[in-house]
């Protein structure tokens, strides 16, 4: 099973799109979500996200992500709920009240974050990190050093997670029980960060050396062997996303 943010091979339209176009589309959609607070629009984007996920058989991952982002944004939503005294009073608070407007604000935060995060994560699932980095270097002229730092970081996430799983397994074998309260788990896991850190430092160091002896310093924007031409479908997707953005701007200009 593929891990968190790991590429899932496939042949769908999203898989075959130009990596940079994919990233640009995701970014445009995200920006659109922040241009308007219209709940119907935001929910529409969420539906679009899920449709896109379904088109590349990534519904399960997308739903998982949506849940995770919703849980994370719930904290922000709670703060908004308690600090935005708007609309009809529902419950008084010592410093104000919770009103219908507060509820709307809270819901808006959750839906907005879900709507804008899912496409970005989806890009990770349907794009090879290498292709994305190479295309960014070639087309968007991102300096290779930054692209490499980014790909290595993503590349190392599963390696470190695997390490951590191995370390926890070794400690479990010694009788440490990681079940129990969150606080207890945290207390048990804290000392394990030492072995993880030691192995991480060793790994990143040897990775840097290995890249250097394979000509890392010679690499330029022109080095990439594979080319990433923009096809008609890429332009079409970009145009569609720009339309969504325009709609968002129009909605906010109309004050809806």
């Amino acid at each position, binding site marked *: *099973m593929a891990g968190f943010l790991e590429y899932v091979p496939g042949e769908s339209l999203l898989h075959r799109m130009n990596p940079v176009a994919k990233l640009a589309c995701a970014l445009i959609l995200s920006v659109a979500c922040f241009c308007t607070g219209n709940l119907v629009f935001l929910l529409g984007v969420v539906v679009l996200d899920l449709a896109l996920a379904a088109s590349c058989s990534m519904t399960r991952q997308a739903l998982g992500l949506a849940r995770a982002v919703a849980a994370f944004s719930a904290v922000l939503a709670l703060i908004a709920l308690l600090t935005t005294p708007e609309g009809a009073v529902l419950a008084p608070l010592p410093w104000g009240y919770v009103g219908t407007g507060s509820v709307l604000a809270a819901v808006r935060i959750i839906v907005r974050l879900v709507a804008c995060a899912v496409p970005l994560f989806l890009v990770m699932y349907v794009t090879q990190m290498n292709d994305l980095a190479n295309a960014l270097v070639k087309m968007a002229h991102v300096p290779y050093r930054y692209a490499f730092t980014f790909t290595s970081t993503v590349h190392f996430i599963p390696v470190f997670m695997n*390490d951590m799983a*191995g*370390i926890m*397994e*070794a*400690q*479990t*074998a*010694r*009788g*440490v*029980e990681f079940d129990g309260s969150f606080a207890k788990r945290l207390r048990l896991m804290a*000392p*394990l960060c*030492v*072995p993880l850190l*030691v*192995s991480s430092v060793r790994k990143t160091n040897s990775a840097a050396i290995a890249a250097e002896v394979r000509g890392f310093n010679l690499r330029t924007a022109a080095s990439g062997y594979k080319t990433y031409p923009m096809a008609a479908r890429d332009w079409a997707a970009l145009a569609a996303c720009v339309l969504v953005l325009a709609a968002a701007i129009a909605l906010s200009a109309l004050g809806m």
Partner: protein
Amino acid sequence: MIEFRNVSASYDGELPVLRDVSLTIPDGDFVAFAGTNGAGKSTTMRLINGLLKPTSGEVLLDGVPTTALRTSEVARKVGFLFQNPDRQICQPTVREELLFGFTAVGEGGPDAEACVDAMIEAFGFDADAEPFLLNRGTRQLLALASIIVREPDVVVLDEPTTGLDYRECAKVMEAVGRLNAAGATVVMVCHDMEVVGDYARRVIAMTAGTVVDDGPTFKVLRRPETLRRAHLLPPQVTEVSMLLGADPALAGTAVARADTLDEMAAAVAALASEAARAAARERAALGACAPMGGE
């Protein structure tokens, strides 16, 4: 005693890595699992200490299925040495690392401290040294020491000698041998067939998640069919012995049975002196005959 009853196992519901394995390891045994990477050896080790539960069948420790035991209960019985000691070591000093074996299962106290001090003495560790500054071999030895300090009934070793040089390897294996002599059951996965030949009394050969052969070390390692199916090479002396034994003139002689350096050297020397004696007799016989047939 460890029992596998028709055990199958898989990770994350993928293809089974172990298929219908049944075996029994009595107390005090010294067993080596042999086979290529991916044959299911490490999975078998994980099943023994309950890190992995079977998808079907049962793994029993002294008659109790591992599914009915908490991991800490299994940990009291079974010590597990991982291939990479750095995943195990997590304490700031050697002494604390050794003590952690007890505190992890809630058995700290003066008795534990006494055991730890005895272990430091026996292995010649520097009690206050920082584990991560020790070299690989010493770290492996420390990881082993922190497992065996609690004197578990069973010790499971996953590739205990990988990355160690000859001296470090001998140190680790001698410690394991002493433990076994004191009554502990030892189960190991080991690619170094010389180590297997030197220490294990029984070999279980695996391939593609199944057991292909199980028996006394050199019986298993001398069966051509087993070697072929599990992609194994026997220890070198055994291989020499098999090559020599294939010669009809030598089949059935001591060289065809020798499995250790001493046995083989002695067997070759004995055959050589026998051959020399035979040659001398022949010469003597010829010498006796010569005058009659001569001029």
